[in-house]
């Protein structure tokens, strides 16, 4: 498949936007400016970007605790995202969700999720709705290797296959669930082995190669739109930082050498090198993109810092469409 320069530029921009957002969030967390937990997506940018460049604004995604990258890739704006991380009223979730629940339904992002595995069944529901409406949209579920050990994943996979729903299962296999290596918690090496058990095709792609992910997604999406049901894509990838927070070296459960090896395959820098070698872009082009987006991030941080926190009367707003009198006791 020959990808147009526009698509390649778009992929690159999305990856850089994720990287800059996450690095900025990490710095803010270190400066104690972000409350709560922070699970950074750095290292995995190619997966969200490759998938989301193959989707339309009307297609939906579900996400995980490591969800900022998915939202950025799906079209989330820096300002309301940064404000949400800081717990401000101008955030996408009005400060009520934070990093672990960040969402924006306007771009089809059905939320980061604090419960491992919980996104996949919700994607099945979105896919079901698409099929019922006959709108030609697909729903993609992002999930980690570790989450494929939970019942919700298996129920979702089976149901989507049984009902031939337009759903894409996107596994980001970064080899760890929290602080425990994958081989301690499953007897298979490739998550894709699970696909056959439900009757869907499964492919392994290089999770550091945005183009490979994009192409696999296009194929899975075409299949789903033709009414042939879901596919599973396993992207072999790596998170550069710790499970949460910003430490990356000196961790007990993985070696610094392993981190260094994966960093050699940085999804953004390797993409840039390939584009430059192919004559599709120049170093100056890329420098320009980074500089432009860096300015956007700085502006978003300023916006978030200047934004007000929600008023206390917001506490009981949005529990229901309207709070019933009897519920508050």
């Amino acid at each position: 498949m020959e990808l147009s320069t526009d698509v390649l530029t778009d992929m690159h921009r999305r990856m850089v936007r994720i990287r800059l957002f996450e690095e900025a969030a990490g710095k803010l967390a270190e400066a104690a400016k972000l409350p709560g937990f922070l699970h950074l997506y750095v290292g995995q940018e190619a997966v969200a970007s490759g998938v989301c460049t193959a989707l339309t604004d009307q297609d939906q995604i579900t996400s995980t605790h490591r969800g900022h990258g998915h939202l950025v890739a799906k079209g989330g704006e820096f300002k309301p995202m940064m404000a949400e991380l800081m717990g401000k009223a101008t955030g996408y979730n009005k400060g009520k969700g934070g990093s672990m629940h960040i969402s924006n339904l306007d771009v089809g992002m059905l939320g980061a999720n604090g419960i491992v595995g919980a996104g996949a069944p919700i994607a099945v529901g979105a896919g079901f709705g698409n099929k019922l409406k006959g709108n030609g949209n697909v729903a993609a579920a992002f999930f980690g290797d570790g989450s494929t050990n939970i019942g919700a994943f298996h129920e979702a996979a089976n149901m989507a296959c049984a009902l031939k729903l337009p759903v894409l299962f996107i596994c980001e296999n970064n080899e760890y669930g929290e602080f425990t290596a994958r081989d301690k918690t499953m007897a298979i090496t490739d998550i894709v082995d699970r696909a056959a058990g439900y009757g869907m095709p499964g492919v392994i792609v290089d999770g550091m190669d945005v183009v490979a992910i994009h192409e696999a997604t296009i194929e899975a999406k075409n299949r789903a739109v033709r009414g042939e049901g879901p596919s599973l894509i396993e992207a072999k990838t790596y998170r550069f930082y710790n499970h949460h927070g910003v430490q990356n070296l000196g961790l007990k459960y993985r070696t610094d050498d392993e981190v260094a090896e994966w960093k050699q395959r940085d999804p953004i820098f390797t993409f840039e090198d390939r584009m430059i070698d192919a004559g599709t872009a120049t170093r100056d082009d890329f420098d320009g993109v980074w500089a432009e987006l860096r300015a956007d991030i700085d502006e978003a941080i300023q916006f978030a810092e200047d934004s007000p926190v929600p008023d206390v009367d917001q506490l009981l707003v949005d529990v229901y469409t309207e709070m019933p009198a009897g519920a508050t006791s």
Partner: protein
Amino acid sequence: MSRKISYVQAFNEAVRQEMRADETVFCAGEDIGGFGGVFQTYAGLQEEFGEERVVDTPISEQAIIGLGVGAAATGSRPIVDIMFMDFICVAFDQIVNQAAKMKYMFGGSATVPLTITTGGGGGLSAAAQHSQSLEALICHIPGLKVVHPSNPYDMKGLMTACIREDNPTIMIKHKRLLGMQGEVPEEPYMIPLGTAATLREGADVTVVAWGRMVNEAFDVAEKLAEDGIDVEVIDPRTLQPLDSETIVESVRKTNRAVIVHEAVRFAGLGAEVAAQIQEEAFDYLDAPVARVAAPFSPVPFTPALEQHYQPSAARIEQAIRDIVARPGA
């Protein structure tokens, strides 16, 4: 011999001593082996007892509880960990329909000496799926016992009692008490399940609180003593079975009661305590039983809202002042 150790260390010591004394005791849970648990409650246990008795499980809450139920019913004494209390929802069938009911359904022939440990409570900006206090849900289920220690001494004594108990127990560790220091004897000891502690004797009003709220209430009581308000503070320590006798006796003496908990007020455990007080001490009451608890909403992420969500010292103080201000009979 007594020395000061933390809430986490008290938990760890109870497990370690019981594992040394009884080789049918084993532990299983996510990240508890190599990593020692995300709260370090299981630190060092795998080093001492090996991978067979301190097991890193897949992210599979339902199977983790099932592992405990099946092993318990066939002669082991398992301790299984559900990282955050919110995740018990993923395993609710195994807890509610299996563990709790097996003895009864089988006409008494099965015994399930299972301990489930989990981290509860909010105040960490961990948002709606990592902050809940769900004790009312589990205390409602016949067959389960529930403990929630407020200090290191109670932690060790209650955890030891849970492990030796022949019925399924749920040990709720409060996430904001993990580092709390206190005097703890080195030798093993049990606090019998179902016995409350009267932390402070007083004549004017009884405050019943559990978990972190005990410590808040105690500090408020000390402060109010300076204003001549004499508060009795009771920590039930075990929520199921509840030491109603100690509570009722106290209210018969003070004629006033305030209940404080972190969970939402509507159908919270405070409602049960209040009902028992009016049933057993109606003629002694000088004021309606008061409750200080969370409003009827999920736990908000932003500290700006969560600080108003959690019962604070100020709210507890106000409730006590209001109730003692009511003229008595």
